[in-house]
């Protein structure tokens, strides 16, 4: 019979982290769905500043801003769920999770903003200089994901003996 483990009581810092990322995630969805509506409006009004063939780079950049912003907002919601899930076994989020938190937040700002700014001023097929934010954001997102992965692996190895499926708890 599997040993029943009482999960660690969620500590305040984990709750704060969860709450913060739920706010960021849902808030991000609002912002980037609004951006999507704005782009649809540009389509609807057939505005040259967006649809003219010379604005292909702008169109691509702004679509990427919308897509990345929406996706990364969902990542924040996933992160909130992950933290909530991990809090069953650890008293408080480790440094990896805490650093991932700010990296994800910075990534959510940097990448879509980079794409959006890159689309405001373009040079033919080259986006504007704002595009420099994109690789920064991408690296932050990548490191954040790795930190979360490592943190979860560590938690799993530490509580291997008692790591049960939540439904068994």
């Amino acid at each position, binding site marked *: 019979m599997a040993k029943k483990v009482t999960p660690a009581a969620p500590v305040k810092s984990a709750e704060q982290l969860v709450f913060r990322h739920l706010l960021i995630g849902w808030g991000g969805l609002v912002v980037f769905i609004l951006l999507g509506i704005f782009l649809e409006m540009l389509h609807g009004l057939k505005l040259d500043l967006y649809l003219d063939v*010379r604005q292909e780079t702008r169109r691509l950049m702004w679509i990427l801003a919308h897509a990345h912003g929406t996706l990364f907002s969902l990542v924040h919601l996933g992160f909130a769920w992950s933290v909530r899930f991990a809090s069953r076994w650890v008293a408080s989020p480790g440094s990896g999770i805490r650093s991932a938190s700010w990296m994800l937040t910075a990534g959510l700002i940097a990448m879509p903003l980079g794409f959006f700014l890159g689309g405001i001023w373009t040079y*033919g*097929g080259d986006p504007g200089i704002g595009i420099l934010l994109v690789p920064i954001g991408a690296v932050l997102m990548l490191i954040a994901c790795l930190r979360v992965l490592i943190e979860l692996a560590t938690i799993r190895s530490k509580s291997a003996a008692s790591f049960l499926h939540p439904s068994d708890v």
Partner: protein
Amino acid sequence: MSRSQPADSFGLEATPAARILVMGAMLIGGLLAVTVVVSVSAAAKKEKALARLALELPLAREDAGYVSSNACQSCHPGEHASFHKTYHRTMTQPALPDTVAGSFDGTSVMSDGLEYRVFRKAEEFWAEMPDPEEMMYVVQGGKPLPLDKIPRVERRVVMTTGSHHYQTYWASGADKYGNLLQTLPLIYLIKEQRWIPREEAFMKAPHDRGRMITQWNNHCINCHSTGGNPGLQKTTREGGFKTAAGELGISCEACHGPGEEHIRVNRNPLRRYGLHGGSQEDSTMVNPAKLDHKRGSQVCGQCHGVYIRTDAHGMKFAEEGEPYRPGDDLNETRYYIRYPQRDATPIEREEFAKNPAFFAERWWEDGTVMAGGREYSGMSVSACYTRGEMSCFSCHSMHDSDPADQLKKGGATNGACVECHGQPEYTTEVSRHTHHAVGSSGSECMNCHMPHTAYALFSAIRNHQIESPDLDASAHLGVPNACNLCHLNKTLEWTAEAMHERYGTPKVELNEEQREVSAALLWMLKGHAAQRVIAAWHTGWKPAQDASGSDWLAPFQAQLLDDPYGVVRYVAVENLKALSGFEDFDFDFIGPENERREKIGEAIAQWREQGRGGEGSGRSELLLNDDGTVDEARLRQLLSERDNRPVNIKE
């Protein structure tokens, strides 16, 4: 637990609704799969057809750094898109179902007495024709054989030229000559959707024609492809060609230079953003609009001019292709021929004396350009260019213009001229200079200084030799002037008086006819073919109709329905049909001679029935009697004096 319905393989309860869902999903999936298969197979078929065709077409040039316009698209999407709309791009194309305008439906067309039949074999275009290589030998005198005895062959049509007004075609040559492309001497008129023999599409003297035989490889390649190299093989026994081109049609690299190096160095983003942020130009690419006005215009002039290659480059071109690159000085590799005018050099005069026919085909006798497509030659001797800084880009743009004339916004208005000519008499008080109402066609700079006195493609086009109306040239050299091309109902004497009164121009000596009969009628009735076609075109020009009325024109346009030159007949009937009441006038400009003659009478009878004559009645300068009928005696007399000198304009 009992189940009323068995679960299917999707784990769904097999309710009717679930079944419908599953079947719907399968149907949609099936349709998608079919669509994908059909699309892929169509794409593969086209690829295969193109691959087969490629064996006959000019090779892709692998030297000289050409990369084709496809390589430009990803970084310059806007420029590529605007270029893609131009007729420059579609000047030369592989003959594929989506590029061929002509109907290859088994039609037979007679060209200079020989039959050419065009037909399709599935996706391929073919012609049954006299063997073009045999024809070449016979016409060039290498083989004594009547033309109608030349064996007939089937040749695949592999390439097209033109896509705007008309299209002509190239058939593959015999294998032993490499990728030689022989002309199919037929033209497909796109608007009319009909075939005509090639000789009727050019201004060629009917009795001075000779069979029109052309090979694309050594002639048309120069301006109808980008980075063309005829690849003449001097070392093989038969000669032959290994012709290659950077791209068919006139594409990015024709004006900007080969792009290989540009692409290579600009893979580095730091370099690109350094250029974006700085003021330095990219040294690996030429922007003609940023060159000085002469070098910039030479980029267009590489094709839109009259030139011969210098001795050093003539054979080199045949073997290695064009040495000129945008930004170079054209004059280093070519010699641009000027009409020997007042300041002519002894060499120019000598050339003129040696080749009067060459000059007569391209210039009016006062030295203004007559053949269309030679705009650089005209502009480059104009004061606006030699003393000012006018360039092709003062009015034209390849990327921000209507593809029809490539005129940029405002390029066809006074705005283009007043950029330099900003004095009040050309701007705010323009009537002081033009003596025409502000905003009227008579106050448009180009109507007086760039009249439509050049001819190409069944149309009069604006002369790019920017000059003031010259009555002396009209009176003594037969050059149509802007005033009388608009005031069709006025005599040269009327114009001379007006010019003298308004501009102090010295009065010119005129003969009796020039004093008594409208200049436009003289050009139409007794002028030479170029005068006739230019005058006939103006009968349909709205400003001219507004200034001169149009009720009296039909009987005179009708006289040209029997003109010896096909292009004159075409222009005449097109403008006759532009008159009210003649819209449905039925006339085939290449129909039998007797039918054409009959149509003259028909048009005049129709004009009489309509009670025309209008405001021209009783005006002897319009050859109209008081009762509005035509002064037949005078008309016949003028027609009998028609200038039948041969006129050849190869456009």
